[in-house]
């Protein structure tokens, strides 16, 4: 499969108040053409910095990035024509209507007559009746849709979505994912960062996890789910957990979730709870999801 994006040992350091901050520390992986690729990591892991380097908004301190074979620094014009970026921040130009914004963005890419595609974008993203409305008059969700449309005006082969569904309603998520999945089926590569891990699990064929600027996991989503703790023990309790269980448990109010590698480990956990005299309610044993995998990997990395 041809490669669409190459991150070749990308490092980025900033001068921070307390000395040098290493935002990216030798990130190296490829994204193949037509992939739906997920980039996950906690806040401050370096996801947005990596995307900024890819988009030419930030310059890498070391390493190289290419998009469709074009270096993002040396051959920036061709590289930027190859990617469409939906920024994380909800930004807009208050002077213009939705259609004007899309025409202007098309023009920046040298496209003068783009009405047919603009109409398709407006319809596909549920903005058909908003074309002549000024950006200031749109709701947050509608502005987010325009951001997506702006990133796609030049039909880029690589689409980058930086937390596109942060704080948006279910309807927009469904509209957006339907539209993006359609583009992915047509061969567009998609790179997605999100905090909604169920979205990444449902959409992404492959996932890289970043922590403190380093790739700590990189595999097919199915392999990540199978390779780590695949069983999840869920229960409710009002009592304090034994130390051995507490160290690996995720507690939300009364709800406790603990991952286990296999049935024997589940038995061990239940034994520890019994010995600790913990009264357990609503016990469930199920398959671990990506969120569990994510937390396990992040926890492992912290301990390492």
């Amino acid at each position, binding site marked *: 499969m041809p490669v669409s994006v190459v991150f070749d040992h990308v490092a980025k350091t900033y001068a921070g108040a307390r000395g040098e901050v290493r935002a990216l520390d030798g990130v190296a992986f490829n994204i193949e053409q037509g992939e739906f690729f997920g980039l996950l990591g906690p806040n401050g892991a370096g996801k947005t910095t990596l995307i900024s380097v890819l988009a*030419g908004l930030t310059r890498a301190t070391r390493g190289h990035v290419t998009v469709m074979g074009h270096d993002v620094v040396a051959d920036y014009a061709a590289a930027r024509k190859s990617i469409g970026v939906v920024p994380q921040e909800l930004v807009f130009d208050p002077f213009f209507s939705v259609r004007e914004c899309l025409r202007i963005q098309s*023009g920046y890419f040298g496209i003068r007559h783009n009405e047919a595609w603009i109409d398709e974008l407006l319809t596909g993203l549920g903005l058909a009746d908003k074309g002549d409305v000024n950006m200031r008059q749109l709701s947050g969700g509608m502005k987010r849709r325009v951001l997506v449309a702006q990133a796609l005006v030049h039909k880029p082969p690589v689409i980058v979505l930086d937390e596109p569904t942060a704080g948006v309603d279910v309807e927009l998520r469904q509209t957006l994912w339907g539209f993006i999945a359609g583009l992915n089926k047509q061969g567009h590569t998609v790179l997605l960062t999100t905090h909604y891990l169920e979205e990444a699990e449902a959409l992404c064929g492959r996932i890289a996890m970043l922590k403190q600027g380093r790739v700590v996991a990189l595999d097919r989503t199915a392999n990540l789910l199978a390779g780590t703790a695949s069983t999840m023990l869920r229960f409710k309790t009002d009592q304090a957990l034994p130390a051995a269980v507490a160290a690996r448990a995720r507690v939300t109010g009364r709800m406790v979730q603990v991952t286990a590698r296999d049935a024997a480990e589940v038995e061990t956990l239940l034994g520890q709870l019994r010995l600790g005299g913990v009264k357990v309610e609503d016990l469930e044993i199920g398959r671990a999801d990506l969120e569990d995998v994510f937390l396990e990997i992040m926890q492992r990395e912290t301990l390492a």
Partner: protein
Amino acid sequence: MRFAGARTLFNKEILRFWKVSVQTVAAPVLTAVLYLLIFGHVLEDHVQVFPGVGYTSFLIPGLVMMSVLQNAYANSSSSLIQSKVTGNLVFLLLTPLSHWAWFAAYVGASVVRGLAVGLGVFAVTVWFAPPHFAEPWWIVIFAVLGAGMLGTLGLIAGLWAEKFDQTAAFQNFLIMPMTFLSGVFYSVQSLPAFWLGLSHANPFFYMIDGFRRGFFGASDVSPWLSLAVVGASFAGVSAIALRLLATGYKIRS
């Protein structure tokens, strides 16, 4: 096709100020007219700079040029700082536009705004004193070069500034004093020797003196000297602006 991106940015910048033309064109015209009414009324019978030229006639080209310069500066500086503060500059940063395209579009649109306001001021003030066009080519040359230079300074200020008040400070502490001390309201020949010497170190003086030459065929210094100074100053600030754009100064981290 090759220049389509730059042309789009140029058109967008023009559309941006035109959509709020009451604030960006009509208001500065009104300000200039108020200057003319007040200074013209007070000084008409007391000051004659060139033989046979009344003070109001003398003042009009200065006011026109001052409006051209200030509005050219305001256009690029306010557009850039607004885009930076609101974050929508990212739409431009993500495009394949070169630093030459950014420069041409921002400075070009600033020239258009400067000239639009200048024409507005002229169209209104012309009723106060009949115009002279002794050497009109100098009018066009110095209006375009002056607007270009101030549009470029606005571009530099917009790139440098991180807050609105920083572009305003650039305007209030640099652009405004240099404009007012350049002979808009008087001939620098009437100044004491020290201030006359200082005026000759101010590139804005050459813009206004050269511009006025086009109206009256008379000027404090040769228009060719003014052209050389203004041309060299414009080239210098352009080189700085292009370098800042090429390196992504304060816009790409």
